[in-house]
C-alpha cells in the first residue's frame, strides 16, 4: 500500500509540472508582463516608467527562463519561471495585487469554504442516493417515469436560477434567513442554511438520474436473479446486495471531488458573500489578479490529482478483488 501511494505521488509530479508549464505559458508568454502592467495600471497612466516600476515591484522584471546576467545558480533561479512558477511547489504563492500574502489568504478562507461545501456534498450524496434507490426500487412504474422526468427538468434549469430564485424567495420575500454574509461562532448556521439547501437541490437532478442508471445496471445481473430465486425479499436484495455493489461506480465519481471541496463553490460563495476560496477566485478573475488565478489553478490541479489517488485507494477498500500491488 505504502509503495503504491509513493509510486502514485511520483507519477503526480510530471502532471503538476505540466500544469505549471501550461499556466506559465498562458500567463507570461501569450502576453508579456508589459501587457499585464498596462491592464492593471489602466490606460491613463501608462508610461514606460510606470510599467517598469510595476514590474519591478512584483518581480516581473526578470528574464523568463534564463538570466545570463546573474552569477552561478542565479542564472536559473533569478528568472520569472523560477520565482513565480517553480516556487509554487514549495507552497510559496507570492502576493496578490493588493499586496496580501496569497498563501495566508488561502488558509484563512478555507474554513468558510468547507463550512458550505462539506454539508452540501454529504447531504447531496445522501439525498441523491436515497432518491435513486427509490426510483430503482419502483422501476418501470409511474413514480419512476415522473421521477426521471422531474430529474431531467431539474437538470435543465440553470444553476444561476436556483441561487437567484432561492435568494429572492427565502431571503427577500419570506425573510427567513439573511440574504448574504457570514458570521462567526454558533450564529453561522443562519447564513449557511440557504446556500447549502440550494446547493443540494441544484445538484439533485443530474446525480439522482446517474445513480439510478447505476442501480438499474446492477438489477439485471445474475447474482440478483440468484438472490431472488433463493426467495430473498426485494428490500433485502436492494439494501444488502444492490446498494453495496453499486457503491463502487458511485465511489469513483464521488471520491475525486472530495479534495476539491477545499476550493469551494464559485457561484454560491460569490452570491451569498461568503469569504471563502470560491469568492476569492471570482474576485480575482473579475479584478484580473493574475497571481491569485495562477495560484488557484495550481492548488486546484494538485487537489484533483490527490482525488484521483484517493479514488484508486478507495477501490481496494470497497472491492477486495482489486489489488493495488498488481
Amino acid at each position: 500500500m505504502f509503495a503504491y501511494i509513493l509510486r502514485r505521488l511520483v507519477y503526480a509530479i510530471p502532471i503538476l509540472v505540466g500544469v505549471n508549464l501550461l499556466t506559465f505559458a498562458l500567463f507570461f508568454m501569450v502576453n508579456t508582463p508589459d501587457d499585464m502592467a498596462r491592464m492593471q495600471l489602466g490606460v491613463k497612466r501608462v508610461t514606460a516608467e510606470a510599467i517598469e516600476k510595476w514590474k519591478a515591484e512584483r518581480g516581473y522584471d526578470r528574464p523568463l527562463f534564463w538570466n545570463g546576467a546573474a552569477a552561478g545558480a542565479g542564472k536559473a533561479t533569478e528568472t520569472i519561471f523560477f520565482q513565480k512558477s517553480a516556487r509554487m511547489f514549495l507552497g510559496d504563492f507570492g502576493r496578490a495585487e493588493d499586496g496580501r500574502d496569497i498563501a495566508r489568504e488561502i488558509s484563512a478562507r478555507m474554513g468558510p469554504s468547507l463550512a458550505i461545501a462539506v454539508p452540501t456534498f454529504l447531504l447531496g450524496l445522501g439525498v441523491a442516493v436515497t432518491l435513486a434507490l427509490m426510483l430503482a426500487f419502483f422501476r418501470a412504474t409511474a413514480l419512476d417515469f415522473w421521477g426521471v422526468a422531474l430529474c431531467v427538468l431539474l437538470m435543465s434549469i440553470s444553476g444561476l436560477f436556483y441561487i437567484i430564485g432561492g435568494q429572492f424567495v427565502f431571503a427577500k420575500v419570506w425573510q427567513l434567513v439573511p440574504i448574504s454574509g457570514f458570521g462567526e461562532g454558533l450564529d453561522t448556521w443562519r447564513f449557511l442554511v440557504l446556500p447549502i439547501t440550494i446547493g443540494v437541490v441544484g445538484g439533485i437532478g443530474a446525480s439522482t438520474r446517474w445513480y439510478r442508471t447505476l442501480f438499474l445496471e446492477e438489477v439485471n445481473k445474475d447474482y440478483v436473479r440468484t438472490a431472488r430465486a433463493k426467495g430473498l425479499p426485494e428490500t433485502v436484495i436492494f439494501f444488502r446486495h444492490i446498494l453495496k455493489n453499486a457503491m463502487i461506480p458511485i465511489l469513483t465519481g464521488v471520491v475525486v471531488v472530495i479534495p476539491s471541496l477545499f476550493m469551494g463553490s464559485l457561484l454560491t460563495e460569490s452570491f451569498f458573500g461568503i469569504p471563502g476560496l470560491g469568492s476569492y477566485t471570482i474576485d480575482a478573475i473579475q479584478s484580473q489578479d493574475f497571481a491569485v488565478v495562477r495560484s488557484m489553478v495550481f492548488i486546484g490541479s494538485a487537489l484533483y490529482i490527490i482525488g484521483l489517488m484517493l479514488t484508486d485507494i478507495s477501490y481496494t477498500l470497497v472491492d477486495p478483488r482489486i489489488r493495488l500491488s498488481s
Partner: protein
Amino acid sequence: MSFQPVLLWSDVLLWLLVFAVIGLGAYSGRARHLRRSWKRLGKSNVATAAATLLCAFLLVGLLDSLHYRQRLPDAPGQSEAVYAVEALSALDGLLSHLREHNERTYSAPLAARAFVMETEETTAGVTRVYPRLHYGGAHLEDESGKAIDVARRALTGVGLALLCTALVAGVVFRRKPQSDFAWRGVLSALLVLFLVACTLSQLAGDYHVFGTDKVGQDVLYQTLKSIRTALVIGLVTTLVMLPLAVALGIVAGYFRGWADDVIQYLYTVLNSIPGVLLIAASVLMMQVVIDTHPQWFSTSAERADLRLIALCVILGVTSWTGLARLLRGETLKLRELDYIQAARAFGVSSVRVITRHILPNLMHIVIISLVMDFSALVLAEAVLSYIGIGVDPSMHSFGSMINNARMELSREPAVWWSLAAAFSFMLVLVLAANLFADAMRDAFDPRHEG
C-alpha cells in the same frame, strides 16, 4: 442595392456547421447500421417533439446570422452609396419595430404606463405620475380597455395557432404516412410553438410583451437575439472540440505506445486544472490580447464576434478530453477484434483501417456526446457571462441578460421580467436538447437496445 451583405466569422461557421450536420445526416442515413438508429429515433414522440423545438430555435438563430448593412439615404451631390456602420441581421429586419420601440426605462410586461414615477408639469402644478409609455399600449385611447384588448389579441393568436396546426396536420395525414414516424410529437410541439409565436406576434406589435429593461429596450427582442449566441456557443465549440477529440482519441487507442503516453499525459494535465479556472485564465489572456491590439478590429461588432469565437475555441480546447478518453477506450477494444486483426494481417494500411473500420464504429459515441455537450455548453455560457469571462458585454446573451438583471430583484417592487424571460427561454432550449440527447442515446447506444 439597398443593402450590403456582411459576413461575420461566426455566421460563416454557424452556416457551415448546419450544412455539415445535414451532410452528416445524409451520410448516416445511407450507412445501414446508423439508419436503423435514426429510424428508432423517429419512432419516439419525445425525440421528434424535442427536435421540432430545436429546429425552431435554430431557425431564429440562422435568421439572426444573415447580416447586412443598410444603405443610408443619399446626401446631395454624393456619387457612391454609403452604408450604415451598424450590421443588422435578417432577424433585426423582421423585428424592426421591437428593436426601435425603446422606452425611457423599465416597464412591466404588457404595461401601458412606465414602472417608475416621473415629474410632470401640468397647469395644476407639478405632480408625480407614472407616465404613459411611448409605444407600449400607445394605441389605446382609454387605458381601462387594455385588458379587453390584450385578451382579444391573445384569443386571435390562439385561433391562428389552432388554424396553422390544423393545416399542417391536414397536410400530414392527407398523405397518409406509411412509416411509423412519430408525427404526434412533431404536431404537439408545433402546436405549442404556434401558440407562443402567434400570441406573441399579435401582442408584440403594440405592447412590450416581456416588458423593457433599464435602458428601455424590449426584453422579448433581447431574448430572441440571445438564442443565436447560445447556439453559436453550443455548436461552434463542437467544431473545435470534435477534430481534436476524434484524432487524438483514435491515435492514442490505435497506436498505443509512446503516442498513447503523450496523449494521455496531455489530457490528464488539461483535466486536472479546474474547468472554470482554465477557461477564466484563457479568457483573461485573450482579453489582454484583444485590448492591446485594437487595430485588428474595424467595428465593435467585429470585436464582439471574434471574442465569441475565441470563447468557443477556448471552450473547445478545454473540453475535448472527455470525448477523447471515451474514444480511446473504445478504440482499444475495437482494435483487438478479429475483423480488424484480419484487415491488419492482410496488410491494409493503418489510415485505411481507421477510416474504414474504426471510425464508423465510433460514430454513435461521437453523435451522442455532441448532443449531450450542447446543453451543458448553453448552461455554461450563462455562468461564464455572469463571472465576467463570457461573451462581450455588448452582445445579447442569456448570461449577460441574467447578469444585468440580477440586481433588479432587490428593487422594491422587484423587476423580475428580464430574468424570467431569459431563464424560461434557456430552460426550454436546454430541456429540448436534454430530451433529444436522451432519445439519441437510447436509439444509438447498442447497450441500450431492447
